[in-house]
């Protein structure tokens, strides 16, 4: 039932999309997302899917068409990166506010200016508070499996929110890796049929989608979005468990590594967490009691899971591949320190790294490990945020 294929992260996403066979895909090309759309266009051209594609004239129209399509009751997907996501921004919020279960892989890339095509998380952090669920992938395997699970999460009756599946530009999107692919049928069975809550094509009970909502109702509708986000955490856990039962791989909203006896921990998102595995193992061989915590589900923020994973630790380093430019620290750092407030008095150090695709080297990570363990011993933090790997 499993086949191993050599795929790039983008190919793995396209393969998941092929198996999902959505009703509609509306997309616009942008580096490094492009090969997702190209590969999927091949599937369409060769009749391997019968999806209707809308090759729009901009990302703004891509998300706008997705909103129209999803409101019409069609299972709808798109994909983008960086400036494309920035251009979509207005409609990204509308998709969430209208409770449309659109799924969008985001191939993470830096935002202009200066223009740069390489990885960081500035793009998705710009829609952090949009009401979308944000999943982060460590490698190509996870892009494949998160894309499949994202459909179920988005469409769950208790959720009805759009989902972004984040993969690091070039690092995951263009690296070829062995990916275990499941047969079409079990994937299709897992994904199931889309049963839209409302449809603008239902003539028997016509609905007005997107009405003007003033002081007397807007707040209640926003409250419902917030409530769906809260509920989505358990739904994600249930869907992860169901996926594990069917395919034998357990996704967790957060994943700790060698934390059981650790003094200190590094927290982060995305492909860096794969690199950390090796370097934490090396540090362990040298007797350094370090572990890491990978955040797979960034929104909803799994606060209680994170607190219970981190509360006994003596120092925590948070890696942010995006800068909030707020004279205080990166977005993940703010969330982690906030979550730990009252639960832990351990120093929390913020490292901002990897902007515009800057490599995070072995030396950088070893320094983070040593500094964090030093903070664990002394209880003293380093000035934050610490920019690592940059010429000061």
């Amino acid at each position, binding site marked *: 039932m499993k086949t191993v294929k050599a795929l790039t992260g983008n190919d793995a996403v396209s393969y998941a999309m092929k198996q999902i066979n959505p009703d509609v895909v509306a997309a616009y090309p942008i580096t490094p997302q492009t090969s997702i759309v190209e590969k999927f266009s091949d599937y369409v051209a060769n009749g391997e899917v019968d999806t209707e594609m809308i090759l729009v004239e901009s990302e703004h129209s891509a998300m706008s068409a997705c909103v*129209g399509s999803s409101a019409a009751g069609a299972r709808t997907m798109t994909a983008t990166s960086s400036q494309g996501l920035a251009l979509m921004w207005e409609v990204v919020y509308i998709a969430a506010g209208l409770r449309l279960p659109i799924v969008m892989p985001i191939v993470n890339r830096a935002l202009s200016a200066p223009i740069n095509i390489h990885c960081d998380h500035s793009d998705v952090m710009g829609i952090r508070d949009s009401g979308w669920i944000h999943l982060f992938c460590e490698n190509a395997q996870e892009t494949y499996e998160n894309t499949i699970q994202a459909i179920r999460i988005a469409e769950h009756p208790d959720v009805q929110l759009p989902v972004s599946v984040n993969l690091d530009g070039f690092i995951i999107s263009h690296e070829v890796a062995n990916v275990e692919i499941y047969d079409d049928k079990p994937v299709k069975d897992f994904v199931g049929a889309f049963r839209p809550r409302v449809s603008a094509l*239902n003539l028997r009970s016509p609905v*007005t989608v997107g009405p003007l909502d003033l002081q007397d109702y807007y707040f209640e509708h926003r409250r419902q979005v917030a409530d769906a986000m809260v509920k989505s955490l358990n739904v994600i856990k249930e869907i992860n468990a169901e996926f594990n039962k069917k395919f034998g791989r357990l996704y967790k909203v957060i994943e700790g590594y060698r934390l059981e006896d650790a003094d200190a921990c590094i927290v982060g998102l995305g492909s860096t967490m794969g690199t950390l595995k090796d370097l934490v193992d090396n540090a362990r061989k040298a007797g350094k009691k370090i572990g890491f915590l990978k955040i797979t589900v960034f929104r909803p923020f799994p606060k209680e899971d994170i607190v219970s994973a981190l509360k006994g630790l003596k120092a925590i380093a948070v890696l942010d591949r995006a800068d909030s430019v707020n004279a205080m620290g990166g977005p993940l750092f703010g969330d982690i320190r906030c979550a730990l407030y009252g639960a832990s008095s351990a120093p929390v150090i913020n490292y901002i790294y990897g902007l515009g695709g800057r490599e995070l080297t072995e030396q950088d990570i070893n320094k983070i490990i040593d500094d964090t363990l030093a903070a664990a011993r002394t209880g003293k933090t380093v000035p934050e945020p610490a920019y690592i790997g940059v010429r000061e």
Partner: protein
Amino acid sequence: MATLKELSVKGKSALTCGHRMCAGCTAPIIIKMITLVSPTPVVVVCATGCLEVATTIFPYTAWVSPFVHNAFENAAATISGVETAYRALKKRGGLKEDIKFIAFGGDGGTYDIGLQALSGALERGHDFLYVCYTNEAYMNTGIQRSGATPRGAATTTCPAGCEIQGKSQQRKNLTEIAAAHEIPYVAQASPSHWQDLIKKSEKAFSIKGPKFMNVLEPCTLGWGFLPDQGIEVAKLAVETCFWPLYEIENGKYKLTYIPKEKKPVTEFLKTQRRFSHLFKEENKQIISQIQADVDKAWADLNAKRV
């Protein structure tokens, strides 16, 4: 050709009573006339604007047909999604009904901020009718200048002052821009000539592919005329050739109404407060320029007809 009475009995308007458009607004008349003659049920997409905000104040709606509002500049992209979803679901056996898709946008949402999305949707060949109801300024936000505002008109962002006398530029010709996409059907219409508007709508509904109609929509507040004068003002726009009625079917131009006597443009201008400053002695040359604009556009149009 049905009579109005027959139409109102036979047809089903997508917009019903109870909306909160201004007294004297000509937009609901246009929406009703167009949707009345659809041979099948319609699904409506609407850009942000007067029409959208005044017909859909939650928890009420004046739309008896399915209706989607997304944002200001993306009605054409949104209807692309709706229409594509329809084709996808029909192909997969989930839908049986025949549906016509109509997008409504004002001139702000069409001439200006929504032009790119409109161009993309026309080029992609979606099967839909886009109707621009042009009241020649951003009326929903309080009468600001748009790309559709005609020369000389005063708005709140191009007021008539001591130095500048309303808008200095000519409006853009959106109907010709739409026609440049070489889509099967483009038309310009006015609610004053309802039979013409209805015929064009019927024709648009009978054609597969993208269709575009630019319909003049006199605005009582923005243009400055009494609420019972809208249709008269629209009629003068046509009689003066300020707003010619024509269609372009598969590239062939046809004037669908030729005034017996082309009235001077002042007959139209003098009915509205937005042009009142032009009648000062020192602004005579602006009126001459407007007349020259109208004459040239009319001559160009006549040269294109087959």
